[in-house]
């Protein structure tokens, strides 16, 4: 029954979008973390989506292929009083771009809503199907 497969597909999208939302939350929370666990400034994390065959290969769900770190250089802030300042008095700050993260967050939450909506529609259709002949 292919309507059941809609649940799997929309569910995979919900999982993927919440992983993306997780990455955004992590980036925003660490926008000012001068040092991570490895002693280096935090680097923005981005999730990479990938289409994956689901249920006979006709339709494709989505999954998170990998989480990549943003390769752009750290933001250099002049603060000679900070203990992590270099010889010139600059502190390497995380390369998180708050504007990009906000856009990412809104996009992820809209996609999440849409896929939840898709699930609701599939549920309605299945319930209607169960009522055939009543």
């Amino acid at each position, binding site marked *: 029954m*292919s309507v059941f497969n809609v649940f799997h*597909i*929309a569910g995979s999208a919900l999982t993927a979008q919440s992983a993306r939302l997780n990455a955004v939350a992590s980036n925003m929370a660490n926008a000012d973390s001068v040092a991570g666990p490895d002693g280096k400034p935090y680097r923005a994390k981005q999730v990479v989506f990938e*289409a994956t065959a689901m249920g006979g290969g006709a*339709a494709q769900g989505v999954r998170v292929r990998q989480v990549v770190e943003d390769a752009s250089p750290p933001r250099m802030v002049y603060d000679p009083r900070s203990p992590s300042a270099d010889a010139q008095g600059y502190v390497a700050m995380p390369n998180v771009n708050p504007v990009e993260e906000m856009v990412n967050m809104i996009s992820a939450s809209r996609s999440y809503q849409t896929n939840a909506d898709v699930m609701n*529609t599939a549920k309605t*259709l299945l319930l209607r199907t169960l009522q055939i*002949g009543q």
Partner: protein
Amino acid sequence: MASKIDNLLAFHHQALSLRAHRQQVLAGNIANSDTPNYKARDIDFASALKNAVAGRSGEGVALARTSDRHISAGAGGGPAPLLYRKETQASVDGNTVNMDVERSQFAENAIFYEAGVSFISGKLKTLMSAVQGQ
């Protein structure tokens, strides 16, 4: 008599399974709206239904298997050939999902599915009143 009831419902049965299949494909498009390089897919419902009613499978040619150890190939993707949707606005990441089109097609398909369900219910009610003769 059973075959007559079968004939009565056969068309709606085919239409309903195709609608369910298409619903799944459209859900896949919506799920992959943020996947890089994903191309939106859809089926040509009218020709798929024509083929299904005529008893032809939409998948075309399948490989003949002369031994159990052969791997089946060709047919098996679903009841209708998957086509690619025409692109209206190019996206930088190679994704061709247009959310407005997908949402409206999804809603339209859901309504047609419900219509199919009520057609079947109506036919069954007609049969019931013929049987009861009241």
